[in-house]
Structure formats: C-alpha cells, structure tokens
C-alpha cells in the first residue's frame, strides 16, 4: 500500500483518541456534538460554516465529512462553493491585510 500521511479510513477511527485520554476526549466530543446542535443558528448554517473552515484549516477529513453532511442536508453545490469562497476570502484577506504592516514598515525604514 502506498504510504501517505492521510488515510481516509482514519476518519472512522477519530473517536479512538478518547482511549488515550478519556476525560479530555469525552469532553471534546460532548462539546463538538453540542456545538452542531440546532441553536440560534440552524444545523444547516453550521454545516456550511464547518465546510468553509474545513477548507481554511485544510483538513481533508473535515472536507470529506462536511461535504457528505451538506449533501445529507440537501445543501446545493452552489451553496457549498460559496461557503468555500467565503472562507477563502477571509483567509486571503488575512494575508493581504498584513500588507498594511509591510507598507508601514517600508515607509518607516525609507527616507
């Protein structure tokens, strides 16, 4: 088998992290489950946020999971792609806003 850092089958084993640290693992999964419950935001809206963030943090497991979650919720591919762009825009904006720091430093150092 080809050796890679990421194995899609590992996603199913995610709950196993609790085996090596029961208290923290359980607290995490309780928290995680609670976060995605219907609240002030709908579960559908949270699913789209999760999909956008999955791309920003470049987590292949999360992308698989929330693409499937979106399909299950009837979220369209147009909505999914717009969510990814929203994430990408924030991420590129975060890079570009540092341009202001560069400009300030440039000006400070220049005569």
């Amino acid at each position, binding site marked *: 088998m080809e050796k890679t850092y990421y194995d899609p089958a590992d996603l199913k084993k995610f709950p196993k992290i609790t085996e090596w640290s029961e208290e923290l693992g359980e607290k995490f999964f309780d928290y995680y489950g609670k976060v995605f419950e219907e609240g002030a935001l709908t*579960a559908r809206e949270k699913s789209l946020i999760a999909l956008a963030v999955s791309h920003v943090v470049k987590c292949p497991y999360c992308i698989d999971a929330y693409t499937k979650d979106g*399909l*299950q*919720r*009837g979220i*369209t591919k147009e909505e999914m792609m717009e969510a990814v762009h929203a994430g990408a825009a924030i991420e590129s904006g975060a890079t570009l806003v540092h341009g202001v720091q560069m400009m300030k430093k440039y000006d400070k150092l220049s005569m």
Partner: protein
Amino acid sequence: MLKKSLHKRANQLSQSKKQLEILSNGIFANGELPTFKDKIAETNQFPLRPNKTEILQINVGYMCNQVCSHCHVDAGPDRKEIMTKETMQQCLDIIKNTGAHTLDLTGGAPEMNPNFRWFVEEASKIGVEDFIVRSNLTIIEANKKYNDLPDFFKKHNIHVISSMPHWTKEKTDKQRGQGVFNKSIEALKKLNAVGYGMPNSNLKLDLVYNPAGAFLPTNQASMEKDFKKALIDDFGIQFHNLFAITNLPISRFLEYLIASENYEDYMYSLVEAFNPSAVKNVMCTNTISISWDGWLYDCDFNQMLDLKVDSKVKHVSEYNEDILNNRDIIISQHCYGCTAGAGSSCQGTVV
C-alpha cells in the same frame, strides 16, 4: 444515464443470490462490521417478529416508464413482470377480509398495469381507510391515456405518494433520468389543480425524498421545510408531507455503490447510524408485501431479494393473517437501511 434494467443487461446483480452474497461477505464476514442479526441481538430484538398487519403493499408489476439509477425494484420499460387480473382478484379477496387499514399499490409504475384502473375501482368499492398509489408523477405526462390520472385518483380518493429526490432539476434528473424534473413539476401542478396536496384538502399528496447519492437522508422535518419553501417559491406547488427514505443497498443502488467505490463507506454509515429504537417500528412489523405473481414477503426489499416469508403461508392463494403473523422476519445486512438514524420505511421515518 441508465437505459436498461440490470435484468435486461444480464448483470450478475440482477440475481438476488449474488446480492445476498455481497451483503454477507467482505466487511460483514471478516467481522469488521457486525451482521444485522448480531446487532439486533445486542438489544434482544432477534428474531424480529411482526405485530398486527396494518398495511398490504401490492406490487402490481415491475414495468416502469423510468429507469432510475437507485431503483431497488430494477424497474424499467424492459421489465415484463405484470400482475394478472386473476392474481388481482385474489388480492381483492384478501382486502375484503384483512385487518389492515392501508392498501399501498406500488410497482414499477402501477398505472402501467393494463388492469390497474379496474383493480383500483374494485378495491375502492370494498372500502379501504387509506388507499395509496405510489405514482412516479412522470407517468401522468408520459402518454395521453394517462393524462386524466389526477381526476381518476380524485374520483377514488386515492392517497398519492410520489418520488421527488430534490427540488432542483440537476439532482432529480441525475437520479431519475433526463427530463424527469420538468415532467414531475407539470404533474404536480395538475395534481394541485384538482385539489391534491392543498392545505386542508382531503386529497392527500405526499412526496418521497431519496438521497441522490451515497449518503443518508437528514432530518425529515427540516427537509420537508426546505422542499416546501423551494416548491412553492419556484413553482407555486404544494404538498402535504415529505417522507425521507434511506436507499437500501440492493439492486441498482447496490450496483451504483459498488461502481462508485462507495459500498463499504455506505455500509459503515448505515451501521454507525443504527438506532435500536427504530427496530421495533420497522415496516416489516406491520406490512405484508405481495409480488406481481402473488408471493408474500416481509417487505418490498425482501421481495426484490426473493426472500419469501418464513411461514407455512407463502402465497395470496393461501393467505391467512393469523398464520402469517406467527412468523420470524427474514433479515440480512440490507435491513440496516431501515434502522439508520430516525429509521426508514415506505411511510418515511419511524422514530
């Protein structure tokens, strides 16, 4: 896009034995996943036993004007299995004496059976509390001779249940065939026009949602909200309830799962979503499924897998509800489809 049934293509998956073999081998044989029998035994629910028979589901033939990619019946224009008038007469005799309150006609496209209208007329004379016809909608538009179906349904107070995998054209046509979405919309408008699906109308029109792919349906109520909003906003269409039905890994959906390399992941999803409280309400506990040739099954899925009821009584000609109710229900790994999440049945979720 599919044009022919597995049967016509002489695909090995057209044989129920082959399907059952796949469902019992691999991840279920090597212990990676528990078999359905072991899983329900964990909560002392094996063997699965029926309660009172409430629904008679009659499959009047496998012929259909569509070749949907997920069809568990492997229906299509090339299927010639059609219930005869003699078998229909035997079914009518059962309907007269059954304790069931619901009669559920399915197919194929049940309307394509040449004796469909006669059968509906005769059955409605007997008086059935809830008389369902599972109509694929496009049949109403398929040929002039079917154009008056909405009026025919109305005349006999038929409860119409129709498939609609999504409120977008792309997803619907991918699963059900080119042009299906537009025809379905037209058919729904005609049903609405005669009163079906309208608020407070007694003419019941429900839609069935099957996921168009290798994933499970989500919360039925929230899907219904989305469907209602989209259909009223985009087309001015109304309906009563949405039933979210899980695709079971048999027949053409099994073919799709294997070809798209989704089979194992799908089975994992079903097993992970196993809900023990769905087991006691699965439809095989209150339904008898009758095939076009009069054989009796625990459900429509077992019918397609040729798993006849485990009872002395196996055919409409010898039908006896008391004897039938004293049987064990036949199960295999496809049953996980009916116990995932909120459960799944021909009437939607069960929990």
